[in-house]
């Protein structure tokens, strides 16, 4: 009988070491998880956009992926905004990164979205990051989850891994954040309509943007 318990203890030890090794070798936060890069270069990128080039209204949103309000706006308001304003050609939406320093993984999440964007899946990844926003509450390293979300977004995981490992878009994200500072972004999400900062007393809804678009369209100069 004692031999049996020794066998159980040895097996538990071996299995415990095995699980520990699997978790250790499974990756972890890559170069993309590091803080702001020491140098910033303008690569000409000005954000991912939704909507037509000819839309009379362009909304620029400075977004932080770890921000719960941004997630709430993205999951509750954006579907209506897409349907009523963007898909109808009235509004074009531009997303710029503004990772807040208080958020541990927002820069990392922005980088994951950019790496997905490099493969043409930025918006799918953005949807995944906001739809599975529990990662922002756990405080745990989300690199493993983000990889799964990238896969679910239709991204080639090997190319994604290489992009994340290299921190390929770290400078682009920091450039966007510094641009936000110059434009006096004071929180997330912060919105600009045709370059003019929008001040809301509360988180705006789709109705606010509909009224705004109506107003801009009604007051724009008429072509003769």
């Amino acid at each position: 009988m004692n031999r049996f318990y020794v066998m159980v203890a040895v097996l538990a030890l071996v299995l415990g070491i095995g699980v520990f090794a699997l978790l250790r070798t499974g990756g972890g936060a890559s170069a993309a998880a590091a803080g702001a890069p020491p140098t910033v270069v303008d690569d000409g990128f000005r954000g991912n956009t939704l909507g037509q080039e000819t839309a009379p209204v362009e909304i620029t949103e400075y977004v932080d992926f770890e921000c719960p309000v941004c997630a709430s706006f993205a999951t509750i308001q954006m579907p209506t905004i897409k349907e009523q304003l963007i898909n109808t050609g009235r509004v074009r939406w531009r997303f710029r990164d503004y990772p807040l320093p208080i958020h541990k993984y927002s820069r990392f999440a922005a980088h994951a979205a950019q790496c997905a964007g490099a493969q043409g899946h930025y918006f799918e990844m953005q949807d995944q990051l906001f739809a599975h926003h529990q990662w922002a509450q756990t405080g745990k390293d989300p690199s493993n989850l983000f990889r799964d979300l990238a896969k679910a977004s239709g991204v080639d995981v090997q190319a994604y891994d290489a992009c994340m490992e290299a921190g390929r878009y770290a400078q682009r994200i920091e450039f966007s954040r510094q641009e936000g500072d110059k434009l006096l972004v004071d929180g997330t999400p912060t919105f600009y309509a045709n370059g003019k900062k929008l001040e809301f007393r509360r988180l705006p809804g789709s109705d606010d943007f509909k009224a705004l678009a109506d107003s801009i369209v009604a007051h724009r100069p008429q072509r003769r």
Partner: protein
Amino acid sequence: MRYRQAIALLALVGLFVALYLWLHALGFGGAIKCGASGGCETVQTSQWAVFLGMPVAFYGVVGYLAILVAAIVALRPAALSQPRWSKWLVLLATVGFGFTLYLTYLELFVIHAICRWCIGSAVIITAIWIVSLLSLKSPAIRTDHATLPLQQGRQA
């Protein structure tokens, strides 16, 4: 006794499989080690990866731990001759086996992806279920029966 020992060892292996999947679901470690198919990612990111607000693997950890504890308790000398422990093991294994059947159905016919770790767990719980049924048919034998005549002899 051998059946209960086998159940304990199988439950121990299953416990660590479920523990790995649970820790992965909680965000520990990197990408799941799953082979080139990537089925684990598809399964783990599906809407069925969470059951009643908890990752499915959490129920695996609880289930295997319950079976392991029950098997260890059933191996105590005093419990070896008691068939009720075999019934408890059958009950626990049947619940686990039923849950695994449901999850395997989801993988094959709803998610259309196979997770190798889930298959491993399914094999383990199926083996536990079969062994527990066999233990029900062949009750455990007391290992301390030799002390009984000696005690009776002393009383006489």
